[in-house]
């Protein structure tokens, strides 16, 4: 029985790092690579790993994202369990062939029924002025290439639990760490056996009137909106997906069947974002439970502006989320 009661207060990135250390201790096949890993990574996630595991298992690479990802795939094919930090989710596109063809499709193409563990860390989302090519939310890509798992933790506890799950998963995992949550703190279970299952959502707030589906950076904002709306007698149920592939539709659809009104909130751009797929599934599968169309609240369809004040206006705010919920309940 895993004791989750003992917890410690940790930052989100630090929790990821702790998960890496624990899994590297547990399994000699696990190693970490990326730019700046020896110095603890750009965002502190890998801090201290080289001290414990040496440069044999903590590798610095040059500025070669395609190579980093391809190397990860090759090492996984050869039976190792590599973790590559890509620096920014935006760089998924530099390593597109390596991630979305090689990692995703290798076993399928070759008819191989074998485990293949590889974790690709994509720091995603706005962090205050990093610009359109260092702030993208690219998590939808993993959903569109069958063969990959896609996770997006929203709390330090989930950051740790999902990283550990990813390293025990016999399939490649695209692990999207949320930049704007990097230094947020939370209670994190200390047990080295604490794992958050991939593919399981969490209902963070129960409610009867509206189902609000979200993940990552928008969970906090959705919760704040939910609190504000409670004083207006609007009862919002907030579901934190935690994983996008596989996606816990059972939890989502059970909720929508109860509330009859659904909305999806994410920081990624609206058009063809994860919300579009989720909305399509909701209306396909529980259409006759709906009182109103499924709404999406997401970033404006533009590359994010460089200026941080403009950038903030492009992504959903608490007020926008609440206003959308009000509109939905009035429909």
């Amino acid at each position: 029985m895993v004791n989750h009661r003992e917890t410690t207060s940790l930052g989100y990135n630090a929790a990821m790092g702790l998960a890496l250390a624990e899994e590297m201790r547990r399994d000699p096949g696990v190693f970490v690579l990326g730019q700046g890993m020896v110095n603890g990574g750009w965002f502190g996630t890998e801090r201290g790993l080289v001290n414990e595991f040496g440069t044999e298992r903590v590798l610095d690479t040059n500025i070669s994202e395609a190579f980093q990802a391809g190397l990860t795939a090759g090492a996984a094919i050869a039976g190792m369990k590599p973790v590559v930090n890509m620096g920014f989710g935006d760089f998924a596109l530099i390593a597109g062939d390596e991630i979305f063809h090689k990692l995703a499709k290798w076993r399928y193409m070759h008819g191989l029924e074998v485990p293949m563990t590889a974790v690709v860390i994509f720091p995603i989302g706005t962090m205050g002025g990093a610009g359109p090519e260092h702030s993208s939310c690219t998590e939808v890509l993993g959903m569109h290439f069958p063969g990959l798992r896609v996770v997006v933790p929203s709390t330090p506890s989930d950051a740790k639990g999902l990283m550990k799950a990813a390293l025990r998963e016999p399939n490649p995992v695209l692990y999207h760490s949320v930049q704007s949550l990097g230094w947020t703190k939370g209670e994190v279970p200390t047990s080295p056996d604490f794992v958050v299952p991939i593919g399981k959502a969490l209902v963070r707030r129960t409610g009867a009137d509206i189902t609000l589906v979200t993940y990552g950076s928008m969970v906090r904002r959705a919760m704040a909106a939910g609190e504000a709306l409670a004083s207006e007698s609007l009862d919002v149920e907030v579901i934190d997906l935690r994983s996008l592939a596989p996606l816990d539709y059972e939890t989502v659809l059970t909720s929508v069947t109860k509330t009859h009104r659904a909305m999806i909130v994410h920081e990624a751009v609206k058009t063809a974002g994860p919300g579009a797929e989720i909305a399509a599934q909701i209306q396909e599968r529980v259409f006759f439970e709906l009182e109103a169309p499924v709404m999406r609240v997401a970033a404006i369809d533009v590359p994010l502006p460089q200026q941080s004040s403009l950038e903030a206006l492009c992504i959903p705010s608490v007020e926008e989320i609440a206003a959308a919920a009000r509109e939905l309940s009035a429909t």
Partner: protein
Amino acid sequence: MAELKELRIPHMGSVENARMVTWRIAEGSPFREGDVLYEIETDKTVTEVPAESEGILARRAAEAGAELKVGDLVGWTARANTSAGEIAIAVARVSRGPSSARVSELAPRISPRARRLAKEAGLDPSQIASSGGRIRGDDVLRSVNAATTAQNQTHSEVRSPTTPSGYESVPVDLVLNSTRRRAIARRLSESVRAAPQLTADVQVDLTRLLAARAGHNAGLAGPLKVSVLSYVALAATRMLLEHRALNAAYSETHTFHWRSINLGIAVDTSEGLVVPVIRGAESLGLSELNTAIAEVASRARSRTLRQDELEGCTFTISNPGALGPVLRAEAILNPPQVALLGLPAIQYVPIALEPENYRIEVRPVLRPSLTFDHRALDGGQVIRFLSGLKEALEQAGV
């Protein structure tokens, strides 16, 4: 190409809400000017809405039970003699609509959940009462409950009626109460419940009035002949100018002393009692009043009253004496009025003329009843009014 005209609920004075009671014309049927198209129930009454000109009812847009507002679209009409085919094409065109806003105007939006619940309940979704132009799942559930309740009631009337105890073995014809009857029942019960009502009577010797009347009517054609009712109405109107407390409406904090006298004349029609209103009766002379009474009575019977002739009544005169030899004309007040004058039949009875001589003669006598709301009026006010009325009527023509 056939052009359709929108049929909307006409404005009727202050009325806002209108519940569709029933259509009287089927889709596709022609109608003439004046034919009743549909009935709506407002806060006041159940009203028939006639056609303003001839035509064909092309399509209905609201069904029985729909909660509507004045101005709402209830259907479309086509010009008379338009072929069924042309009408069908025009209807299809109108249903598609140039914009979604127009479409939503045409029929209430039904949510997917509502559609499913309706289907499961075996209901046509478009038959379900909408709230604000939308039909939601809860609206369907309410309809289902109401239908179940109504169905249970109907079934209980027909199969195992809630027959009053002790009457089980008495043979019976069950008559379904009309919507109007139920509306009347509701209103009267409410009136009695809310206002403590009493009735005071006086005896009026009509000898002089009848003589004056005979003289006035000599040489006049039928409709111009003045009725006794008109004389009474005139006298009552003049009295109300002096006794304004009887031309009023009561509320908890204030009493409304109306400045004009909108005289309601109760008319018995084939569909029941109607009380058309003659506005500003205080400014009408005897002949005018007589004409006005005759006209509203006629329109009441032909069901062509305007809405302003159905509302704003400040004092009602009821004339059951015209229907039969009824001795007393006590009535139930028409809220919010505080007084009602009821006229029984004229009787020829022996009365004492000169008390000091105890001379007795048979005279034509009318015993008007004044039913009043005791919250607003004291006995003294009523008796003074009736005394004045008696004197005016006994001196008529003098």
